[in-house]
């Protein structure tokens, strides 16, 4: 357990809140005036998935949870979670659905992901900067190079997720998506 201050907060960090493990989803600085500064924080419970807001005094001490990253392969969904396997040790862990959230849209069987482990519990996945997936359903439309116009069309990816891409992207192409926003980045 490392003691940090609100000045060290980063989105996605894991901290103890009311003695329970939580993840910082969002935070912003608030100045009610007369010298005091605060940090309004949205925290997600790793146990219940419930998100609540708490406003810390700026500079308050907070316990950061020790979290390890393990590279693991996605196997399959099971019950209320998703099963991943460590390729070296063959250890398997289940990450609860509510801690994977929307990222499941971009998860591909047998692909490798950074799984976050806290005290032997799998608590989430570290979002990669980009995911590379194939476009499996795309309607034809738009001239090549038409990004300046900014027009987008909906396509379906191999995972079943629907995303908006520039008009020139065709069925069968590999593209890169930013998993945090679900938006198109580039051809892959």
């Amino acid at each position: 357990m490392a003691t940090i201050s609100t000045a060290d907060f980063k989105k996605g960090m894991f901290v103890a809140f009311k003695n329970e493990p939580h993840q910082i989803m969002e935070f912003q600085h608030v100045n009610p005036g007369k010298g005091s500064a605060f940090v309004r924080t949205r925290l997600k419970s790793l146990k219940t998935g419930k998100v609540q807001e708490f406003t810390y005094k700026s500079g308050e001490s907070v316990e950061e949870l020790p979290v390890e990253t393990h590279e693991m392969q996605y196997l399959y969904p099971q019950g209320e979670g998703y099963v991943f396997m460590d390729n070296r040790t063959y250890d398997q862990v289940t990450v609860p659905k509510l801690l994977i959230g929307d990222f499941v849209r971009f998860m591909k069987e047998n692909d490798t992901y950074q799984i976050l482990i806290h005290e032997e519990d799998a608590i989430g996945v570290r979002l990669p900067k980009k995911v590379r997936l194939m476009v499996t359903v795309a309607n034809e439309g738009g001239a090549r190079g038409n990004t300046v116009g900014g027009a987008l069309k909906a396509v379906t990816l191999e995972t079943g997720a629907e995303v908006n891409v520039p008009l020139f992207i065709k069925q069968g192409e590999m593209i890169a998506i930013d998993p945090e926003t679900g938006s198109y980045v580039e051809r892959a």
Partner: protein
Amino acid sequence: MKTWQKLKQNPALWKQYFIREQVIKALRSFFDERKFHEVETPILIGNPPAESYLDVFETTLLDRHRNPKKAYLSTSPEIPLKKLMVAGIGNCYSITKSFRNTEMQSHTHNPEFTILEWYRTQTAYTKIMDDCEAFILHINSVLGHGTTLTYQDKSFDLSKKWQRISVKDAFKKWARVDLIEFFDIKKARKICAKKGYAVTATNTWEELYNQIYLNEIEPYLGVDQPTIIYDFPGSVAALARKKPNDTRFAERFEFYIAGLELGDCYGELTDWKEQEERFNTELVEIKRLGKTTYDYDHDFISALKEGMPEASGIAVGVDRLVMLFADVANIAETLFFPVEDQFEK
């Protein structure tokens, strides 16, 4: 994608952005009906009012020979309006841009923002509460929505009187704290610790008070109906007139609709000695915090010495008003050119 690109791609979005001009026109008609004078105040100023919780934008004024002088961008039209009140302008208002640095990465802040301030001379701050109820209803009805205001799937009946609650009653109602007891800092520490907040010996009374206010009271303001919360403890409203029948509290109120903090009103302090003392205290704090330093506006103190009429004044975030009436959750959606569009991350 920049906002202008989004608008080109999706012309249906214009309607949302055109709400701003309708809100501002409605504001002007509201004040014109009441015979307030509209004042343009300088954005480029020589000396900001000293406020330690703000960060000022600093720039350089060059004369014809390029001799430099430090200059600043205005954080509020308050000081020029007060000087004009000393000069005898009477009731007045200003719709202008104000600048507050570091105020980014928030759904309700943009470092350059539009502020409305209006002042009534020889009038109690309670009249300004009535103004708030009236101008919100006026804008809503000019926009064609009658007495029903809808924001993020919540409906508000503007024909009903707003909730008016004192800070003392709010502490009792939502935080179950006796604010009079809480004035004693030792008791305040115990109360906060019992509630599970981290308390250290260096925490100021204002920090303890604000932590309860932000966590346990603010979430309830303006949620079911528009709320006016009034009579703040004197130390968090240092430049407001103290209440004559209870000097622990000051004549200050804020109003919230749908959880949005929209306005902050003071029964104005007119004593030049207290104002100067406050400026000096704030400058010490600004240095301590390592923020951009400056000298305060001495001309303002001279004006107060000449005698400012008793007045009440309020500042309202116009961009937040636009958020409310355009039904958007992010201030950037009210601006054609929000700060994010202009500066790369």
